């Protein structure tokens, strides 16, 4: 029987079925700040997908005869030192930055859920082992570690840099999520509905995928959203230092890097201010979405 939202009786009375997702969505919709965040983020995503092909440039479209043009005219946001269109580079860089955020969040979620899930569900020695390992990863100093590893990976071709950066961020960020998932599963395991599953003779597979995961997923979604925002920031920081995505591929981080040249900083603000603003806007909007989701999924109000 397919899921239905409502059954209408012969008398015309409507029996609504309000699931946890419906409740969460209703609460999220009522949260104006979170909705604003969602709309801004959707607009940014559409922009970074649509605008670069519309402009029709490519990464290597140098025009050395027109360097450092001021905004206006043919180039809406002006050009940089090599005469490349700043608008094009801004949105292409956005694509890269957001992709890094998404890939890093996905890696974090996969590792965090698997490790935390196994740890919480099976417990015992395995749990002990995995959690000690998580603690080791957790205690590595994040930024120095990433800089150190990134700088030993200079042999990676420049076009693949964004993937190595995502991978690094993902590999270092999973322990927090793993702990959360483990804790949640430990709590759920003691709930009577899990014992009811055992009493009803339900397989381990169904127990994990039908009973445990749906009850953990909201936590994971919130965490993944916030993780994505922080990955975007980390990438920006790394690229700013030249350890992340490197030229000619743009990213918001390495566009901001242009400001390190004090002449550019003072005279060509269109080359770096938009990247900083976009990065700020994206991270804020994602964080607002995350906070909104956290409130929307609050289990206390499910009753």
């Amino acid at each position: 029987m397919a899921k239905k939202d409502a059954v209408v009786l012969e008398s015309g009375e409507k029996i609504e079925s309000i699931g946890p997702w419906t409740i969460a969505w209703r609460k999220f919709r009522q949260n104006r700040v979170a909705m604003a965040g969602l709309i801004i983020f959707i607009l940014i995503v559409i922009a970074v997908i649509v605008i670069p092909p519309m402009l029709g440039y490519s990464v290597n479209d140098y025009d050395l005869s027109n360097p450092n043009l001021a905004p206006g005219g043919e180039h809406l946001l002006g050009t940089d030192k090599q005469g490349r269109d700043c608008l094009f580079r801004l949105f292409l860089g956005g694509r890269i930055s957001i992709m890094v955020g998404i890939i890093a969040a996905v890696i974090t979620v996969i590792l965090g859920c698997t490790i935390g899930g196994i740890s919480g569900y099976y417990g015992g020695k395995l749990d002990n082992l995995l959690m000690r390992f998580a603690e080791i990863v957790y205690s590595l100093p994040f930024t120095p570690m990433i800089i150190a590893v990134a700088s030993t990976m200079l042999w990676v071709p420049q076009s693949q840099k964004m993937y190595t950066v995502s991978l690094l961020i993902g590999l270092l960020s999973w322990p927090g999520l793993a702990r959360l998932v483990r804790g949640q599963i430990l709590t759920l395991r003691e709930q009577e509905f899990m014992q009811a599953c055992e009493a009803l003779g339900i397989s381990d597979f169904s127990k994990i995928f039908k009973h445990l995961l749906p009850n953990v997923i909201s936590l994971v979604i919130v965490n993944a959203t916030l993780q994505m925002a922080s990955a975007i920031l980390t990438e920006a920081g790394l690229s700013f230092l030249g350890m992340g995505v490197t030229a000619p591929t743009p990213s918001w981080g390495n566009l901001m890097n242009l400001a390190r040249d004090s002449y550019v900083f003072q005279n060509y603000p269109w080359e770096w201010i938009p990247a900083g603003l976009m990065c700020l806007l994206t991270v804020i909007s994602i964080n607002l979405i995350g906070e909104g989701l956290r409130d929307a999924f609050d289990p206390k109000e499910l009753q």
Partner: protein
Amino acid sequence: MAEKRKILEVKNLKKYFPLKKGKYKEGDPCVKAVDDITFDLYEGETLGLVGESGCGKSTLGRTIIRLYEPTSGEVIFEGEDVAKKSRKEMRALREEMQFIFQDPYSSLNPRMTVFNILAEPLIAHGKFKRGPELDAYVKDLMDRCGLPSYYCYRYPHQFSGGQRQRIGIARSLALDPSFIICDEPVSALDVSIQSQIINLMKDMQEEKNISYIFISHDLSVVKHISDRVGVMYLGSMMELADKNEIYSNPQHPYTRALIGAIPLPDPTKRKEMKVIQGEIPSNVNIPKGCKFNPRCPFAKDICREQEPATKEVKPNHFVKCHFGGEF
């Protein structure tokens, strides 16, 4: 009683929870939640289990259907020892023995619709595949349990406590079991709802000839539903007898105290309450001799030295007391 068929025999069942981590070894300090319990259950009867909080009633129930692994002893269900079954064999046996949980809130998965909650065990045991037959069966089951079937797409949080407990009962009945353990199924509910739920359980019993083990701390409820009543104290069965026998002629001082403490609605009939003194001792340091001796008003020297054996003071009336039959 004698002509009735035994459906379940519990023999010397023990469940100890070690205080230390790791495997239990003889003599380790442990919580003796179920300590050497023996009884039989007949087809179609209800055995009430009463006792204070922490006396091991729920642990006994859970050990019988192997939600907990027994430390030792046998649970013979339909001639087969449940305690020796492998996980796979156990899964098949789950069709026959079911459990109703105490808390109607935490016993239902908040993210599944009623339909899915009820259909899941049916699909898991291969009784039905998704389709119109399953729909019809689930709807019929809901109707039988007093839940309008048009509620089937609702989620647990959209129901009241009593309705949730009906869902729990419907779930335990879905596989058509012959034996159900009810772990305080009504203690979380309002008194007015309690009677509805108990009547529902009685109706189901008559319809399907199900045997119940009904765990409760409420003696009035147990009196209403049970055929026989067992009284537990610190993991031991202190007295076990026919309902009328145990309420009219209690032979264990503990049972007498419990029955004396039942509140009566009629103030003119209010007896002098014989409240038991003291707290229930810890299950780790069980008193020497009779477990009840520190709180027993009749305790003699022998009670402090020697643990009493279970005596059959009348046919089918068992008492674990040195002076059983003398009260």
